[in-house]
Every structure is written in structure tokens, then in C-alpha cells.
């Protein structure tokens, strides 16, 4: 296992310089840890066989990195590939059996006219010598990374039976400098950190981005008016709307699964309480009414339940309440500090920032097996803001390293962690966006 890890590290190191050339990216990525039970897969380089200029994106490399990052797959380093078939018919299965590969992906890139490319690829089960997938995708040069992420999603789903979440985006906040000269930006990037795009810049703190379910808008908190206030901004057009600027705290926005409502925290009554705003009429419904801090509402997938942080019992813990209001019940009982809940799409798993003394880690509560089971996903010591991928395979979170913030994506089994680092400054407040295509 150690050797394979080292090989893996070498493989990653080999990829990095190539990746840097390929396309601009905001975040540096490296992988920490490995998973011995991961499925071995060979994603063979996909040569360009057209007559114009080759695409800048190495499609196979993007697919390979996606699959490796998930923790579910162990991608064979290109250097170990003694043969490089580009079509199913060219695969010598004994070779790949000898290399102990369970799966192999082959493909090639062709011209599709008008500066577009056509990627044809196939997935095979090595033992059965059986073709599991055979697809062709056409896209402009600038969208080749999107194509690769969709390929990785299809491969992931075919083998694991779970929808892939590589073709998704993440939002996060960057901070450069401190004190009066600090600059903040709300950013959106591909799930692997590429294609960063600035949504809004501010000289005042920004926090708590929340995706609309269609992936077109972000709600967030800004201090640009002196006090906290909540905006909803269209990522594509840049237009934005001020939706909450009451006396006191205006925080923790969270879109409902149908996109019509926004859960939020307001302290206009003198104490932070959870409210639900109808985004059409802007009418507010108060959900909690309790002495204590109630904040960080997040919705169950059916929109019927809100999970939130409350210190009504003394220290912060996660509670749940019907989205229409009523009595709340406590969800977390392990740990003296549980906050910032993120709930998996099926409602079975809840990840939180769990504090014990001065150590804050990301912890996962699995409620799918009758009695609740806890596991720790991160080593600490100041980990916060967990956010599930839409397929719940990974959790994105923020950590501190020295004086700066970095992001990590950890597989839901805690085995593989990937570090996303901004070249200069702080990265924080990650939020994993929804699937980019509806089903």
C-alpha cells in the first residue's frame, strides 16, 4: 500500500506541471492519503486524430484526476501503460489483467468542424472483456473540461451505480490582506478548482454562499452596508438583489430545494431566529422562537425539514424542525460543539463542524443504519463549513494552515483528501453546487 501511495504521489507530481499549462486555475490541488480498496482503472491517453490544432485540454488526464479524487478509484499512472490503445478493438486484455486493472477507458479526439471536437470513448470490464459504455461527445475547445467531467460522471455511475458529481461547480470566498486593506471575493470554479470566476468583490467581509437549486444564483452575506445583509446574485448576468437588511444579523441564507424560498437567520427581534422568506412575495415566516442563537438553517431534500444550529441547550448543537415551524428536536448528542450542518441528498448523512476543546474537525453522522454512527472526516485543528457534493460522495470544507485558509475535499469514507489552495490569500466558506444537468 505504501508503494502504491508513493506511486500515486509520483503520478500526481508528474501531472501538475502539465495541468498548469493546460488552463488557468485558481486553486492548486494535491491529494492526501489513499484508499487501498479503491478500484484500479486505466484511463489511457486519448490521442487527437484530427487535422487542425489539437485541443488544449488533455481529456483523459482530467477524467483520471476526477476518478482518483473520488477515493473510489485508483488510476493507473500513464508511465505504467505499456500499450496505449485508442479504440476498443485495439485493447489486448491480457496486458491489462497483468497490470491488475479492473477497468479500462480508451478513446480518441476528432475534429467536429468550426473549432469543435468530438471525443469518442469506451469503458471496458477487463475481467469480462465486456464493453460497459461507448459514447461520443462534441464540444467547443473551451468546453473540453466540461466534456471530460461528464465522461468521468458517466464512468463513475456505470461502475458504482451512483451518479457522478464531477461536472459541478463550487463557490467559495477568498480574502487577501487583513484589516482595513483586506479584499474579499466570492468565487465560482469547477469542482476541481479550474475556471475560477469572480462573482462579486468587496472591501468588506463576504460569507455563507448558498446555491440556488438550478445553479444559476448565489445567496450570500455581505458587510458592505456596514451591517450584515443578504444578497441574491445571478452568476451569469451579475445582477443582484438585496433581500434582507434588517436591524441586527442578516445571515445564513439557504435556498429551498424548489428554489422558491430562502431560509435565513435574522435577529431583528433581538435574538437570532430562523425565518423562511418566500422569494416571490418576500414575505417572512418565523420558524424558531427560542431564547438562544438559532442559525445555519439547511433544508432536507424534500423541503419539509430544516436542520439548524442552536445553543438553546447551552452549547451549539444541531436541531431539526418542520420548515413550517413547530417544535424542534435535537439531532446531535456526541461532542460538545456541533455546528454548520450539511445534509446528504438522501437525508441519511449529516456532516458538521465538531468541536472538542480547541480542536474542530469535520464529523459525519450516518443515520442509515438504525442507530446513529459517527465518523471523523478531517484531522483538525480548525476545520469548518462542511458542504456535501450533490451525490454525497465527498465533503468540501475549510481548514486553517498557519495564518491562511485552505479548502479540502474529503471522500465521504474519510479515506482520500484533496487540498485546494489559493496561490495567495485565504480560501474559505466553500459551498458545493448542484448537478449541472437536471434529470
Amino acid at each position, binding site marked *: 500500500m505504501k508503494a502504491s501511495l508513493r506511486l500515486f504521489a509520483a503520478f500526481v507530481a508528474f501531472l501538475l506541471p502539465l495541468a498548469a499549462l493546460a488552463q488557468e486555475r485558481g486553486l492548486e490541488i494535491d491529494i492526501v492519503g489513499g484508499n487501498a480498496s479503491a478500484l484500479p482503472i486505466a484511463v489511457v491517453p486519448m490521442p487527437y486524430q484530427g487535422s487542425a490544432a489539437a485541443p488544449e485540454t488533455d481529456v483523459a488526464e482530467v477524467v483520471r484526476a476526477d476518478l482518483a479524487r473520488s477515493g473510489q478509484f485508483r488510476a493507473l499512472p500513464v508511465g505504467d501503460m505499456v500499450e496505449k490503445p485508442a479504440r476498443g478493438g485495439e485493447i489486448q486484455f491480457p496486458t491489462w489483467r497483468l497490470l491488475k486493472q479492473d477497468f479500462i477507458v480508451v478513446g480518441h479526439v476528432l475534429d467536429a468542424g468550426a473549432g469543435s471536437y468530438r471525443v469518442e470513448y469506451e469503458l471496458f470490464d477487463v475481467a469480462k472483456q465486456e464493453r460497459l459504455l461507448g459514447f461520443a461527445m462534441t464540444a467547443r475547445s473551451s468546453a473540453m473540461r466540461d466534456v471530460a467531467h461528464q465522461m468521468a460522471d458517466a464512468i463513475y455511475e456505470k461502475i458504482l451505480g451512483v451518479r457522478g458529481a464531477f461536472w459541478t461547480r463550487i463557490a467559495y470566498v477568498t480574502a487577501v490582506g*487583513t484589516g482595513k486593506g483586506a479584499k474579499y471575493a466570492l468565487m465560482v470554479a469547477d469542482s476541481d478548482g479550474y475556471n475560477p470566476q469572480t462573482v462579486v468583490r468587496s472591501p468588506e*467581509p463576504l*460569507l*455563507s454562499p448558498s446555491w440556488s437549486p438550478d445553479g444559476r444564483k448565489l445567496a450570500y452575506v455581505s*458587510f458592505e452596508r*456596514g*451591517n*450584515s445583509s443578504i444578497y441574491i446574485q445571478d452568476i451569469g448576468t451579475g445582477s443582484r438583489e438585496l433581500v434582507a437588511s434588517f436591524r*441586527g*444579523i442578516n*445571515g*445564513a441564507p439557504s435556498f429551498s430545494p424548489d428554489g422558491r424560498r430562502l431560509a435565513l*437567520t435574522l*435577529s431583528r427581534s*433581538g435574538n*437570532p431566529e430562523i425565518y423562511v422568506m418566500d422569494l416571490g412575495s418576500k414575505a417572512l415566516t418565523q420558524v424558531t422562537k427560542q431564547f438562544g*442563537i438559532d*442559525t*445555519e438553517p439547511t433544508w432536507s431534500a424534500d423541503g419539509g425539514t430544516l436542520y439548524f*444550529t442552536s*445553543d438553546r441547550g447551552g*452549547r*451549539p448543537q444541531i436541531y431539526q424542525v418542520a420548515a413550517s415551524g413547530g417544535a424542534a428536536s435535537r439531532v446531535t448528542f456526541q461532542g460538545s*460543539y456541533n*455546528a*454548520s450542518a450539511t445534509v446528504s441528498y438522501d437525508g441519511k448523512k449529516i456532516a458538521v*463542524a465538531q*468541536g472538542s476543546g*480547541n480542536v*474542530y474537525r469535520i464529523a459525519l453522522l450516518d443515520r442509515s443504519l438504525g442507530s446513529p454512527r459517527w465518523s471523523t472526516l478531517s484531522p483538525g*485543528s*480548525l476545520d*469548518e*463549513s462542511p458542504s456535501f457534493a450533490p451525490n454525497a460522495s465527498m465533503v468540501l470544507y475549510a481548514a*486553517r494552515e498557519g*495564518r491562511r485558509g485552505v479548502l479540502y475535499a474529503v471522500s465521504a469514507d474519510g479515506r482520500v483528501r484533496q487540498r485546494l489552495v489559493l496561490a495567495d490569500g485565504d480560501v474559505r*466558506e466553500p459551498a458545493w453546487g448542484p448537478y449541472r444537468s437536471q434529470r
Partner: protein
Amino acid sequence: MNTATRVLLTAVLCTAAVACSKKVKEVPPADTGPSTGVVDQGATTSGVYGPGDLDTDACLRQRVVYFDFDQDALRPEFQAAMACHAKYLRDRPSSRMTLEGNADERGSREYNLGLGERRGNAVSSALQANGGSGSQITVVSYGEERPTCTDSSEDCWAKNRRVEIVYTAK
């Protein structure tokens, strides 16, 4: 009507202040026997604070209130500061202050917004208990977003768990 009241009040206060300062020259203030520590700390001989005292008075210059971890209870050592700032608010009804509540970096940012507000409210309550008017005070919470110190250490965290008293009108 509100403005009228304020003008009247200001006028009354002005004459009172003048009258006071005149009196002071004749009879030295009885520094030996004031009942509260507040007056002790008041540097003005008149016994009424003026804007200049914000920069010179030792008690009024104390504009940061620190808190224990995850706590919003006012520590006893800040009682004197509460009393003198409350007196300033009383002495100068036109003055306004913003209480900026802050938390250290540990834990959730949104929860820390709540904690910062609680601390701001604790200071506001203490000022009002000492006779300050709630209408002169605004509480804003910055949570952990405005640290004065960025190391991850207890020393640094203690400096960040604070309420800053900012006079927006002197």
C-alpha cells in the same frame, strides 16, 4: 417636536455646564467623597463629560471590552468603563455609539455572528443599567470577520473576543 426637545435639552445642558464651571472655580469639587468610582475616573473638574474627554479621560479611553471563550458575560474589570461610558451618554444626549461585537476564529462563522451580537448586547445592557439610553446605542456584530490578531493561539483569540465601543456622534 423631537428636534425641538433636543435643542431645548442641549440649551439647558449648555447653561448647566457653564454654571457648573463657574461654580467649580469658587468651590473646589469634593473629590474625596464621591459615592461611585465613576466620578473618580472623570477627569473633568466640572463633573460633566465633554467630547474632549474621549481622548483624555483614562476611563473613557477604554473602548474595548474583552470576553471569555464562548461567553457573553461582562467581566468585573469592565464595570468601571461601563459606568463612565454610560455617564458620557447621559451627559451628552446627542452622542451616539456603535457597539461592534466580535468573536475569535474558532467554530462556525454564522454562530460567531450570533455570539458577537450577544456580546454587543451585553455591553449595551450594562450601559443602559448605568443610565445610558438605548436610543443612543446601535449593536453590530462582525462575528469572527474582523480579527485584530490572526495567529491561532489563545493570546490572539483573547484579543479578538471583544466589543469595540465606537462613538459615531460625540
